[in-house]
């Protein structure tokens, strides 16, 4: 497979041959991606073109088909279809977000009415609570300019990081909030909205970059806080109060009234999605997993945060995927060419190398059956009682992305890892050492100690979340290569993938 890559950029010389049927399906899906992107442009051609010229990050989205290709390499049959369906839903939703953002951007369309109907939120706040305001549009501020674009294109983050560092913020802080602050310093956020919801999630860095965003946006800002010591019942009253205050703030700022019926409807959708999700997990616990790799967590965090039960298209995709998955499982279809190891991926994955799990699978036969990001909240919502629904929502928010495991005590991340390893019958842990994550760095020795006691293959992979200059994709692969060759003394499944250069890739 490595022979398909061009030197330096790892762009494909030609598409992968997967047999007639799968190649045609893959090509068809490639065309669908382009179709969705073109439709987005056609919906608002002037605004989109202006946005493309105005914002550095927008050009990154032109590489979306290549991003999807990186995640489908080597896939066949049901697995290929499942991954494509998930990515396509992400593309459909993201193009909608871009479309709304540019239409509402006052830098592009001054004094437009749509802008006043928009509530900006910190991207880490899941969408459920805003479903109660069906007449408003909610835009997660940082998602398009930096979070999503950094996954699509590894080259987009460094310029923003440099801006922040030039401003005086140290280079050792987590690069995600740092890059978000950089976008603010550069004035590269679309200008829109009637108010902003900031949050203390997920971590210390995000708390602090809110001061940079606040200074740039100059909008009424509400700080929505979620308790940290979330395992105790003693924090739940405060957590619910915070949600009520948030609703009150939005009502005051927009004049809209919270619609409980619509809210309950969204929660019902989320419950249904959760059922499908848990079926995926259950199948992955068996010897015949049907969905491994990065699409698992990418799709999970995307719908968890950005749909929040509001967009029913996600539910349709889940239904379709569920059908495909069960059928393949009944046939005991192998998820990949050869599954030598069942791996759990722990800690925050690198945004600049989301397809790392795909490489693990193709190069070393290491299938990622579960990961930390996927294992965010799986609590069901009460959909009839208002107080109970808010209490459930509060608990869900306490267990959201990058939050559930890194806060509230070491047990949430250390003990939880060993529980997952056991449940998923994993023999290997890919432990991301996100070098700037203080919450995870602070437990490095404990992880090592306990891994030794359990005798699992514990592979540390250093990475810098958003900054490929510190530790490149190639450096990440090399750490696994060394472990596989020296400790486990294994031969690669595909030797052409062991070492290749992709520093100049998107």
């Amino acid at each position, binding site marked *: 497979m490595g022979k398909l890559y061009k030197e330096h950029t790892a762009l494909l010389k030609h598409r992968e041959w997967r047999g007639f049927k799968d190649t045609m399906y893959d090509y068809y899906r490639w065309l669908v991606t382009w179709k969705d992107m073109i439709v987005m442009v056609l919906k608002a051609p002037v605004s989109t073109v202006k946005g493309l010229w105005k914002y550095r990050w927008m050009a990154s989205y032109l590489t979306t088909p290549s991003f999807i290709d990186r995640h489908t390499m080597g896939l066949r049959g049901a697995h290929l279809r499942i991954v494509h369906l998930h990515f396509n839903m992400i593309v459909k939703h993201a193009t909608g977000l871009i479309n709304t953002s540019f239409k509402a951007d006052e830098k592009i369309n001054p004094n437009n009415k749509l802008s006043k109907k928009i509530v900006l939120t910190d991207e880490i706040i899941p969408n459920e609570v805003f479903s109660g305001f069906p007449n408003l549009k909610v835009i997660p501020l940082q998602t398009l300019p930096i979070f999503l674009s950094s996954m699509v294109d590894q080259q987009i983050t460094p310029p923003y990081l440099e801006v922040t560092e030039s401003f005086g913020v140290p280079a050792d802080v987590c690069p995600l909030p740092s890059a978000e602050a950089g976008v603010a310093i550069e004035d590269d956020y679309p200008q829109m909205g009637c108010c902003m919801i900031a949050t203390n999630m997920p971590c*210390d860095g995000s708390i602090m970059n809110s001061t940079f965003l606040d200074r740039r946006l100059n909008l009424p800002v509400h700080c929505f806080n979620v308790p940290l010591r979330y395992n105790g019942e*003693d924090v739940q009253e405060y957590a619910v109060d915070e949600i009520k205050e948030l609703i009150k703030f939005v009502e005051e700022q927009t004049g809209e009234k919270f619609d409980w019926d619509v809210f309950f409807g969204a929660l019902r959708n989320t419950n249904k999605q959760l059922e499908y999700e848990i079926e995926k997990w259950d199948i992955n616990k068996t010897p015949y997993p049907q969905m491994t790799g990065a699409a698992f967590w990418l799709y999970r965090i995307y719908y968890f945060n950005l749909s929040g039960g509001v967009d029913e298209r996600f539910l349709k995709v889940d239904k379709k995927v569920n059908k495909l998955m069960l059928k393949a499982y009944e046939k005991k279809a192998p998820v990949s060419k050869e599954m030598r190891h069942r791996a759990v991926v722990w800690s925050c994955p690198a945004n600049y190398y989301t397809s790392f799990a795909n490489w693990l699978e193709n190069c070393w036969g290491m299938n990622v059956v579960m990961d930390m990001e996927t294992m965010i909240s799986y609590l069901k919502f009460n959909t009839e009682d208002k107080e109970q629904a808010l209490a459930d929502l509060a608990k869900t928010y306490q267990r959201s992305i990058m939050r559930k495991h890194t*806060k509230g005590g070491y047990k949430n991340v250390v003990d939880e890892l060993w529980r997952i390893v056991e449940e998923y019958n994993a023999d290997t842990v890919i432990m991301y050492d996100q*070098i700037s994550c*203080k919450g995870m*760095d*602070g437990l490095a020795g404990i992880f090592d100690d306990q891994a030794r006691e359990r005798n699992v293959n514990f592979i540390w992979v250093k990475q810098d979340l958003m900054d490929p200059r510190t530790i490149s994709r190639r450096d990440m692969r090399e750490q696994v290569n060394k472990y596989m060759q020296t400790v486990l003394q294994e031969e690669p499944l595909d030797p052409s993938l062991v070492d290749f250069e992709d520093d100049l890739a998107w």
Partner: protein
Amino acid sequence: MRDLKHLYEFENLLQDANNELVRKAKADGGIALGYTCYHIPEVLLNCGNCFSVRLRAPRTGSMDIATYYMSNFLCGYSKAILERAIEGGYNFLNALLASETCSEMNRAAEHFELLDLVPNDKFFLTFLDAPFKIENHTVKHYVKQTRLKILDMLTNVYGVDTSDAALLKAVEEHNEVCRLMTEIGNYRKEDNPRITGYEYHILNLVTYCCPKALILPALRETAEELKTREPDEKKKYRAKIVVVGSEMDDPDFTSLIEDSGALVVADRFCFGALPGRQEIVINPDEDVLTQICLHYLKTSQCPRFMSHAKVQERRDYVKQLVDEYHADGVMYEQLKFCEYWGYERALASYVMSTDYGVPTAAVDRQYTASASGQLRTRVQAFVESLEIKKIQKERQAKENG
């Protein structure tokens, strides 16, 4: 200036967390309660026969073991605390009251449990969930947390009296320390202060690290001594500065600044007196614990408070200190790898100079800074720039008549 009578004794008390006064208090049946954060209301740890010890790790050397457990990327303070704990330096503690206010200290504290560091069957560790803004429901939450995680635990484990009467008694003692420190601190507003920043830093640290009752006699005497102390006629400094920033319990840092030509007139850093040594005013008609909690929330200047009002208040407060203490500039310091102050230092130093017109310098430092030549150069350069600004200002004033 004549040396302060108790200065040497105070300096010695800061050489060890388990210092002479701590040992004496323990021998008298006192309960030693460690803490590391302003979000743990200090006064609550001085109820009944308890006494608070704000943890430091003086004379820190190698941090190899702590680095194994917490990597290279965590702040020196959290690692030094862990290293010292592993060495047995905190074996005297009866409890550690922690709060998940920053990830790094939180992880350091968790290792007390993970590695079972304090050999005492009754030793306990609690984590408080502190709010990020001040509103009615967040105050209520904070009060509930302090009741559950601090007072109830002390009563249940050690039978400590945490009644309102006991709290009021602790407040009274705390307030006396604050009155004395404020009285002493006010001398720093003088044109030619009769106390140096280093001396004040030592006095202030002693009040955090020693049992209050045992330190008060020497503190009273020092306050009395200062009433008649004459400063040197010739000023030894070239500029007055306010130091603002993250955790700092190293008087050598202040000494380094003062050896480089500046005088530290206000200490707006974590472990400083601003805030930390303000009296707690109790209204007899209101709930005592709520008022104590509110005092700490309102006075806290931690960058963790993220509401717009609190952010603005932090900047206004620094400007107020500059004016009150007649400072020429502000030095923002950040303990390396401190996530909160990494951001705050950058933005606040920019805002202070552009929006408030106050000259600023921003430095990062290691937990122990005494040997840093680099830092000395930065301070010297800042002092020179302040001098140039002063000269330019005077020249401009002359030109304008």
